């Protein structure tokens, strides 16, 4: 019914991600769209405020490439490995320049997206009492329950200019289905001004319509649909490829040395025209290692009611 929104990553980023934007590339370990992060680096965006619960290696790369001036986050690290060295250099030694931090807890970040998606002026939660976090971040404030004296804390809504969500499959309108770890992609998408859906597979709307309960994001929200198979590497897409833990370990070594890091960016980002080239450069053997076996869900019957 609606016209196709399918475009290339280059087009989508060029048109929808602007200097100074607040950008959320969400995904809790799973479905992190590295391909989008790399394209943003390639197009040399500047002064971005990057939001994520877990900045992860993708934001370390973006921070090292100089696209970001600020992080809004709740856990800063290389999951299962250690530190984000580029981020630490900027935070600990302003090397090469300072990086502003706006820090919450995981649940605080999730509640910020929910408040943004629901157009609430604040969201209440039970975290933060007796923690130094509200002192470090004055946006975390106490709020008194209108029923009696109980005090909880509040976080403000987060409404990114752009949310980039990677899905296993989507149709041309951007109706997207995800499975496996869901993180808070849906909330981030509903909260955002503009949404880019990136998918492993572009499917006919009929595939989506055969399982409407699995649809996380309605095309209604979506400005562009990018078909980018393997676009999450070294993160993963459940059922499509495995997390490349080897790369997360390699990144620890690469990122400790600023020159080696820049060389990596040259070779793997600036030096390539697209994620397709990245996939090819990574090579078939590596992809073979990351290929999972099969574990299919059972179909469910929605029933024909005519």
């Amino acid at each position, binding site marked *: 019914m609606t016209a196709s929104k399918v475009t290339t990553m280059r087009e989508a980023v060029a048109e929808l991600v602007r200097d100074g934007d607040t950008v959320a590339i969400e995904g809790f370990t799973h479905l992190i769209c590295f391909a989008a992060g790399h394209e943003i680096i390639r197009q040399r965006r500047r002064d971005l405020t990057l939001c994520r619960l877990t900045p992860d290696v993708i934001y370390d790369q973006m921070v090292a490439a100089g696209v970001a001036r600020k992080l809004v986050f709740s856990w800063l690290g290389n999951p299962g490995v250690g530190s984000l060295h580029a981020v630490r250099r900027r935070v600990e030694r302003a090397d090469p320049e300072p990086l502003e931090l706006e820090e919450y807890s995981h649940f605080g970040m999730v509640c910020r997206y929910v408040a943004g998606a629901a157009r609430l002026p604040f969201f209440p939660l039970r975290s933060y009492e007796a923690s130094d976090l509200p002192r470090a971040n004055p946006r975390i404030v106490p709020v008194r329950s209108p029923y009696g004296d109980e005090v909880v804390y509040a976080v403000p809504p987060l409404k990114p200019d752009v949310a980039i969500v990677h899905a296993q499959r989507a149709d041309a309108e951007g109706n997207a289905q995800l499975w496996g770890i869901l993180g808070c992609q849906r*909330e981030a998408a509903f909260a955002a001004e503009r949404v880019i859906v990136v998918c492993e597979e572009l499917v006919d709307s009929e595939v989506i319509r055969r399982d*409407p309960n699995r649809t996380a994001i309605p095309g*209604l929200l979506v400005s562009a649909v990018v078909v980018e198979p393997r676009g999450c590497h070294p993160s993963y897409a459940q059922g499509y490829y495995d997390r490349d833990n080897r790369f997360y370990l390699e990144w620890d070594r690469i990122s400790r040395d600023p020159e080696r890091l820049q060389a990596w960016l040259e070779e793997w980002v600036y030096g390539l025209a697209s994620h397709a080239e990245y996939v090819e450069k990574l090579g078939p053997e590596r992809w073979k290692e990351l290929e999972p076996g099969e574990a299919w869900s059972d179909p469910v019957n*929605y029933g024909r*009611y005519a």
Partner: protein
Amino acid sequence: MSAGADRGFTAAEMMVVASARQLAGERVCFVGVGPPNIACNLARRTVAPDLELVYESGVYGARPARLPLSIGDPTLVTGSTLVAGQFELFAYFLQGGLVDVGFLGASQVDRFGNINTTVIGPYGRPAVRLPGSGGACEIAINARKVFVIMRQSRRSFVERLDFATSPGHLGGRRPAHWPGRGPSVVVTDLGIYRFAPDGEMELASLHPGVSLRQAREATGWELRVAQDLEETPPPTEEELRIIREELDPEGIYTR
């Protein structure tokens, strides 16, 4: 007795057709069943092919294989694009500001488009206990525009509501910080009403065969009439065909 019966269509058909035409150019409509559902589906087949329906039951992009008899009819689910839980529906779709038009019915409406669907008589001991808000209160506040569709009489078009369930233009002006702009049109079996800049309803169009006198007599306040009062174009053959053959073949809502 229905206004246009002698003209080959019923008052209910005229009401549905007039409502459907209001949806021209609209994108996302929050809809309950009954006449609004038929109006929306008629609009999709005529003036608003891209209209997306969001049902209060959490179904988006429904493609019903039969006329749904309730907003929770299973035929709305099968083949739809998305089914959301009701928290996501009300928090993200409606309060989140994705809904362009909310369709509301009403037992009572006042001149400012404020709506009562709760009680006739005192709240504590009502003469008639009506269903209550359902989602109407949040639709009235959060949908960008509200369309009201209802039967008109002195009992339904009242000077003073027995209970204000869902706010319209309040006493004439809505708080600026409200996401929605409030009721933009009221379609009844007698005519089409719009709202003047001061928030008061005025008769914009009379349905065929309905006299100004009839409309005045069916209104519980001094009815304001637009300068350029129009006559609603009667349903076209095509509009009637779609309603009678496709949308309400048994005439449950439109006979």
